[in-house]
């Protein structure tokens, strides 16, 4: 059956623009029940969590800002940020970015997609952008949901920073959103690792789990006594270093390094995923993109990046733990002064300034048996201060548990008039005693004592 027909003009090769490919990928993602459930969960679950926790008697004091969830609505999104950095964001990136390429392998739709779009490069860009969009929508859901709930249930009140200074509600709002924005950088890095895993590991479930596994590995490393340079070179450090925004002055050094490292990982991992993807042979039915070459090409450059970043950061950070006696004493003294002033206001006493208090701390580690540096739960500080018009200096004792990240919990050990009681009686009722136990943060980078 051979027909003879007039030859129509042959249309030129037409590639699908990235915008259309992006919309196509977005539609595919949003029709998946798993993605829909995640979106609903991210927009509702944080609100529920903050509302419930803010109403219960015991607070999540192990989580940063958890002890202030009764006091201000701005603590809710920060507690959620701490939790999300550890668990939620790595899992979300796994489920979205970790599956965006592997799903086509599973469904056997690569060839169909390539014939329709006609450009692996554009497919890659469209997939990367669409998965990024969904991840951002999920993160916005976490922020908005927890913030709105916190403000409605607890209220738009002052937030106590990690050095005890007070942030006005407006200031707190800006800083909370900035903290979440900073956490977006390591989220992107994990998403890029997810893309890489999805491309390099094909149908293997390991591709889907890669961001979560990498995040877990990074958390384990962060709990080990590794040099601070290595700690900051890990792409997840910005999940931790946002804490520095809540001191005055802000500890911007670790935060900036963390964000830059995360963005570098994002670029390199995305570039590797792209490199592997455009080289894939889609005509070979036995090849799903995975294999030793893909693993080597995907893994080795990231190991090299980690080494290079560590070497680049080391001159700034040194190879120690970043925690020494001077830093601990300074951090505890500054925070105590801020919180003492807060307690003074709660007790309706005459206001004093931090300068008038001249607070100082003498800290030792392990009862002088070991060098006073590094993390540990055997730090002990004696804080002294002066009240105007009173000759004798006051003093209070604190036991400190400092973790390798520089975060500490100071537990009051007397006198009971200062830090012995959990609550203080104020004219408006009982409130948590800010000096009984407080969280703080030691900057791991070398600091100028005047700063």
């Amino acid at each position: 059956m051979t027909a003879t027909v007039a030859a129509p003009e042959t249309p030129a090769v037409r590639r699908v623009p990235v915008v259309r490919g992006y919309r196509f990928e977005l539609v595919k993602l949003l029709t998946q029940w798993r993605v829909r459930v995640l979106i609903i969960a991210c927009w509702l679950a944080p609100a529920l969590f903050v509302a419930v926790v803010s109403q219960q008697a015991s607070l999540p004091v192990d989580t940063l800002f958890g002890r202030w969830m009764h006091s201000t609505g701005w603590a809710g999104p920060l507690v959620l940020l701490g939790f999300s950095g550890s668990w939620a964001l790595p899992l979300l990136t796994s489920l979205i970015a970790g599956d965006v390429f592997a799903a086509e392998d599973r469904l056997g739709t690569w060839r169909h997609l390539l014939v329709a779009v006609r450009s692996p490069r554009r497919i890659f860009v469209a997939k990367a952008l669409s998965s990024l969009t969904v991840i951002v929508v999920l993160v916005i859901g976490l922020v908005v949901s927890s913030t709105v709930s916190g403000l409605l249930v607890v209220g738009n009140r002052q937030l106590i920073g990690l050095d005890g200074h007070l942030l006005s509600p407006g200031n707190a709002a800006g800083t909370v959103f900035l903290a979440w924005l900073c956490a977006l950088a390591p989220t992107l890095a994990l998403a890029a690792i997810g893309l890489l895993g999805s491309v390099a590991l094909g149908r293997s479930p390991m591709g889907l789990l890669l961001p979560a596994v990498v995040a877990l590995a990074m958390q384990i490393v962060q709990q080990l006594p590794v040099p601070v340079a290595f700690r900051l070179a890990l792409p997840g450090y910005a999940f931790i270093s946002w804490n520095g925004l809540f001191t005055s002055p802000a500890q911007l050094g670790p935060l900036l390094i963390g964000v830059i490292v995360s963005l570098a990982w994002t670029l390199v991992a995305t570039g590797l995923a792209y490199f592997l993807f455009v080289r894939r042979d889609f005509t070979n039915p036995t090849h799903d993109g995975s294999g030793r070459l893909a693993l080597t090409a995907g893994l080795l450059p990231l190991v090299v990046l980690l080494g290079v970043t560590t070497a680049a950061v080391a001159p700034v950070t040194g190879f120690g733990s970043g925690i020494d006696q001077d830093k601990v004493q300074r951090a505890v003294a500054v925070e105590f002064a801020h919180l003492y002033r807060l307690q003074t206001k709660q007790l309706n006493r005459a206001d004093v300034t931090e300068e008038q208090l001249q607070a100082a701390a003498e800290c030792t580690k392990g009862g002088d048996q070991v060098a006073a540096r590094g993390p540990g739960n055997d730090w002990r500080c004696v804080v002294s201060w002066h009240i105007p018009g009173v000759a004798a200096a006051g003093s209070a004792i604190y036991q400190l548990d400092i973790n390798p990240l520089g975060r500490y919990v100071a537990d009051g050990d007397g006198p009971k008039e200062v830090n012995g009681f959990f609550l203080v009686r104020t004219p408006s009722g009982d409130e948590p005693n800010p000096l009984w136990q407080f969280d703080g943060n030691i900057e791991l980078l070398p600091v100028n004592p005047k700063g």
Partner: protein
Amino acid sequence: MDAPPTVRARDLAKYFGEVVALDGVDLDVAPGQIHGLVGPNGAGKTTLLGLLLGLAVPDRGTLEILGTPVGRALAVPEGVAGFVDGPGLYPSMTARQNLAALAALRGDTTLDIDDAIDQVGLTDVADDRVRGFSLGMRQRLGLAAALLTKPRLLILDEPSNGLDPAGKKHVYGVLTRLAANGTAVMLSSHRMDDVEALCSEVTILSTGRVAFSGPISKLASENSELDYRVRTSDPAAARRHAADARGIRLRDQDAIQDAAQDAAQDAAQHAVQDGVEVLVISASVPALDEFVKRLVGDDIAVRELAPVVSPLEAAFLALTEQQETN
């Protein structure tokens, strides 16, 4: 003016490492032609269809599609559609959403989704999720996705997989209409009856090489001998004639079984069950002609004369046997 061939391939070769998927393949597909592609597993059918869809470029040879040389991957001209290795659908979407997403991807608002769905007979399930579709329904929806773009070259890999007889008839109707309107259709299949029913020309591939390419009718003349079933008014006389005739061999049950030709075996057994003696002979076309003339000349009525297996199937089986022997 005469339209250029929709597909013109010369000396195509494709390698996957040390595996030779295609080697020296020539192919011509004219507009309006339904061209079948058959061959044993691993013969290179999917690879060839992949090249026609632009999924890869040949390692050697030239390929022109719709008059345009194809020099790099994914650079086939507009007007080529189809699928290899399954229709490529997204199970979380409905049938209509799958096609709508594809139409949106092409940015063509004139594409008639409802018409494409209607053409393949899926209107009733257009808003059902593809997750619940049978294989046959997916095949039909895959065809609808290809039809959506009004292709001038349609590539289909095993399009009748999973189709029930009614679905198959429906799809055949669609393909025949398309061809009548000038679209070239290239389809691969393991079902010889499908290929014979639909295709005017066929290419048989074996281990990456073309074993035959041309009209199916030509296959019969190229095959030196085929098995035929003969039913006459006088079976005993017919048997004597067959035994005496030059170029005719009587096939007994054992021989048929030895050849592992199930169709022939079935046919012979069926004849015995009916209590009617049916001759199964092996003959070339000229010898068969002579045999029929002798029967008619001896006043023996020929009531049935049909190949036990079709020329295409015989060629395919011969190739398969040859491959197994090798």
